[in-house]
């Protein structure tokens, strides 16, 4: 019993900063409709800035002052991000802002590295709260007690702000109907900036507040994202009480998980999330998103056409040039091109789902990494020949996608996206924590291709065949009746259903198909590298594909492939520099602001302006 109470208290204390950060994310999403991936980075900045301030500000007042100041400073940084990076892209297509926030993540990662160095920083203990108190005989750190008191106070203050003040009325109104609020004369731009500042400040506070418990390190930004998204989704998007309750549930669960089932702590969180969403699809306190009947946001996509003879000739020429690479390129160039081809296939599979299907998956790495792991596990544990593993990998990934898709497709919009992310993280945690089978963090090694494929050049041709083949197959499917039905379901589910199209079935099949193609990319990957590690399943991998698809252009058939090719090539050049993330991040932000239609979309627009492209033409 004593132990039980102590565990609960620890869980409640841990919930504190998670709640603050989640509130910020929820607020920002509610008003601006931006899923701020950089929120974890703001949390990390809060911790680092708080740490530096605590070094110079003395005593108890200095400590708490540092925490507050960290919040304020991060709030100001949030304002800068909102005004410089997000404002120019509010009018861009739905979710395009994600890419911008991802650029911000990269920039902040390197800035933090430059300023605070690579070492983990041990957080200072709170002056006057260093010891423990005994509650029912169990030692509880005094700082935990302080957190237990602070969190409800902040929660009530926020609740008061949102429900009782004029600012709160505006925020709630904007959450319900942005356009109407604008029409009533509220300056939306400043409302957005204000909310972004508040949300960022909360993230900063959360980061600084957890310093005595967790310190500051460079992994904080990504590490907080999974629990953060889980809390926001379980609680219900935009609900403060929901975020509070969910933060507590997740934190308490985590504490008990560590005590009783240390092998499954990570998995547990996602299982809870999935269970909650199965019962209450919009979270504990969330309301169903009122999805408009607009299909895609922004300018509608242009009609697609089967490739003309001219295009076919160009594509064939391109493939021939690629195929001749061994004649003029080094062995290194072949390896690099193999990497690019695999990534193009992976990105194209996400593009199929996201562009044609309108299904924004935040967790597409599940199928890429999943395919890689299926192959690796078959080789390692079943002694399967490479050829068999290579065939079964996409099928396994496709099957996983069908199961995951079946659950996720009950939801729409951002909940759908979050749920796909949760499933990807679930797979990642399974692989990460189930070391005896998957090798855990050490990965699986010695997964080499069959004897006849050992040669770099031959494997290059192997990858070329399957990557280009896969991309062409997806492209063809896009032009088939099935591909049209998929777009129909995206454009107007109402009309599609009213004319006999089973939209959910079509979407589920597309999900499985895209998963299978992602799995194919993963299988190509694992045999080209000879090993696979859990990071092929992690959030960053899913984000890579998302960025590429958005940068290439969602509303163009070739967007995914072009984006992937460009991105991977640039990345390869940049990673030779020490602070490549900074450059890459700035580059991404730059492209987002200058070319909100993506690379292909913007090129086409420019071409049309010049008059070189007939109206209605596809690439």
């Amino acid at each position: 019993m004593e132990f039980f109470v102590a565990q609960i208290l620890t869980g409640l204390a841990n919930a504190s900063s998670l709640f603050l950060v989640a509130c910020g994310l929820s607020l920002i999403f509610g008003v601006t409709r931006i899923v701020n991936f950089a929120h974890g980075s703001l949390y990390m900045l809060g911790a680092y800035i708080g740490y530096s301030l605590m070094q110079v500000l003395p005593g108890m007042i200095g400590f708490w002052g540092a925490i507050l100041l960290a919040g304020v400073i991060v709030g100001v940084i949030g304002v800068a991000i909102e005004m410089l990076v997000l404002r120019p892209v509010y009018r861009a297509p739905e979710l395009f802002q994600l890419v911008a926030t991802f650029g911000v993540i990269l920039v902040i990662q390197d800035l933090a590295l430059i300023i605070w160095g690579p070492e983990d920083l041990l957080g200072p203990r709170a002056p006057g709260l260093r010891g423990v108190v005994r509650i029912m005989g169990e030692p509880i750190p005094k700082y935990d007690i302080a957190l237990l008191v602070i969190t409800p106070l902040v929660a009530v203050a926020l609740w008061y702000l949102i429900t009782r003040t004029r600012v709160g009325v505006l925020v709630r109104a904007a959450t319900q109907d942005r356009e109407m609020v604008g029409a009533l004369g509220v300056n939306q731009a400043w409302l957005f900036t204000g909310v972004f500042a508040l949300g960022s400040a909360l993230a900063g506070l959360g980061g600084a507040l957890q310093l005595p418990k967790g310190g500051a390190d460079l992994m904080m930004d990504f590490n907080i994202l999974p629990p953060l998204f889980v809390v926001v989704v379980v609680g219900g998007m935009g609900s403060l009480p929901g975020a509070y309750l969910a933060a507590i549930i997740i934190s308490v669960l985590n504490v008990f998980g560590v005590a009783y089932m240390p092998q499954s702590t990570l998995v547990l969180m996602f299982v809870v999330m999935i269970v909650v969403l199965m019962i209450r699809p919009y979270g504990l306190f969330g309301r169903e998103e009122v999805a408009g009947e607009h299909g895609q946001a922004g300018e509608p996509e242009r009609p697609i056409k089967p490739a003309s003879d001219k295009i076919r000739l160009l594509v064939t020429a391109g493939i021939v040039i690629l195929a001749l690479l061994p004649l003029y390129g080094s062995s290194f160039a072949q390896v690099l091109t193999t990497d690019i081809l695999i990534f193009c296939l992976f990105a194209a599979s996400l593009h199929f789902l996201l562009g044609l299907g309108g299904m924004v998956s935040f967790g597409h790495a599940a199928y890429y990494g999943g395919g890689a792991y299926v192959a690796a596990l078959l080789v390692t544990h079943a002694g399967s020949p490479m050829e068999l593993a290579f065939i079964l990998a996409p099928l396994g990934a496709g099957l996983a996608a069908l199961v995951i898709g079946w659950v996720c497709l009950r939801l729409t919009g951002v909940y759908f996206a979050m749920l796909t992310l949760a499933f990807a993280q679930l797979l990642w945690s399974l692989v990460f924590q189930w070391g005896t089978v998957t090798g855990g963090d050490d990965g699986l090694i010695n997964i080499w291709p069959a004897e006849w494929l050992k040669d770099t050049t031959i494997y290059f041709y192997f990858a070329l065949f399957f990557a280009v083949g896969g991309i062409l197959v997806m492209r063809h499917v896009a032009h088939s009746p099935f591909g049209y039905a998929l777009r129909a379901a995206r454009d107007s589910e109402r009309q599609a259903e009213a004319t006999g199209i089973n939209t959910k079935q079509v979407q589920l099949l597309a999900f499985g198909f895209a998963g299978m193609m992602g799995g194919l990319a993963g299988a190509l990957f694992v045999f080209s590298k000879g090993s696979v590690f859990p990071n092929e399943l992690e959030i960053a991998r899913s984000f890579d594909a998302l960025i590429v698809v958005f940068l290439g252009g969602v509303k163009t058939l070739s967007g995914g492939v072009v984006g992937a090719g460009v991105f991977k090539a640039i990345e390869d050049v940049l990673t030779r520099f020490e602070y490549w993330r900074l450059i890459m991040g700035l580059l991404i932000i730059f492209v987002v602001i200058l070319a909100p239609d993506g690379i292909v979309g913007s090129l086409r627009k420019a071409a049309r302006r010049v008059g070189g492209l007939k109206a209605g033409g596809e690439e």
Partner: protein
Amino acid sequence: MTAILETRGLTKVFGGVVAVKDVSFQLHKGELLALIGPNGAGKSTCFNMLMGQLPVTSGDVYLEGERITGLTPRQIWRKGVGRTFQITATYASMTVIENVQMALMSHHGEILRFLPFATRMHRDEALALLDMVGMANQAERHSAVLAYGDLKRMELAIALAHTPKLLLMDEPTAGMAPKERVALMQLTADIVRDRGVSVLFTEHDMDVVFAHSHRIMVLNRGELIAEGNAEQIRNNPMVQDVYLGGGTVFASEGAQ
């Protein structure tokens, strides 16, 4: 003769509010039947129950004598019921003809085909449908750039793709210019005459209703309060009361 569409005691209760109460009517072959009533009378609720978008609280819907209560919109469509929406629902990323081809592919059960090029399927059939609604000359245009009236006509072509025996039109002329309204309803009347389709439509514009419908039903507060031809409805004191609190506008309009 069995009616094309028949409802018996159709009722919908939302919480404590009775939105539609005991509505029974028949729609006969080749008939153009209007369902009118003030805002909030329950027209859309009625429609949504007929189309399977809303479960009924009680009562039944029959299509040519076959009970279709509780079927999904997809199943009802397969039984030969087409519909157009109050707010157009079309595939904005496709051309006009592709919008129609999509419905044709669905009708022919070809949604799960992965090999053929969709643009080459049922082109002639789609063109014929577009020709019928006067949109053949715009077949290759991007549907997102169409004028609203043209969009409505395209939607009509989509709804006619599976040669339905019954067409349900929810406020077909809402948001259109007066000239377009007349044209669209004339088109609908022609289709009813030429193809033997039966049509049930809701409408706010009384000119449209009186000029084009064969028979009119009036819904008020969820209940059918009157039924008859244009003349009977115009002169029905209950209807006048509901619409104008006893005014005489209908009578003067009737002189045209």
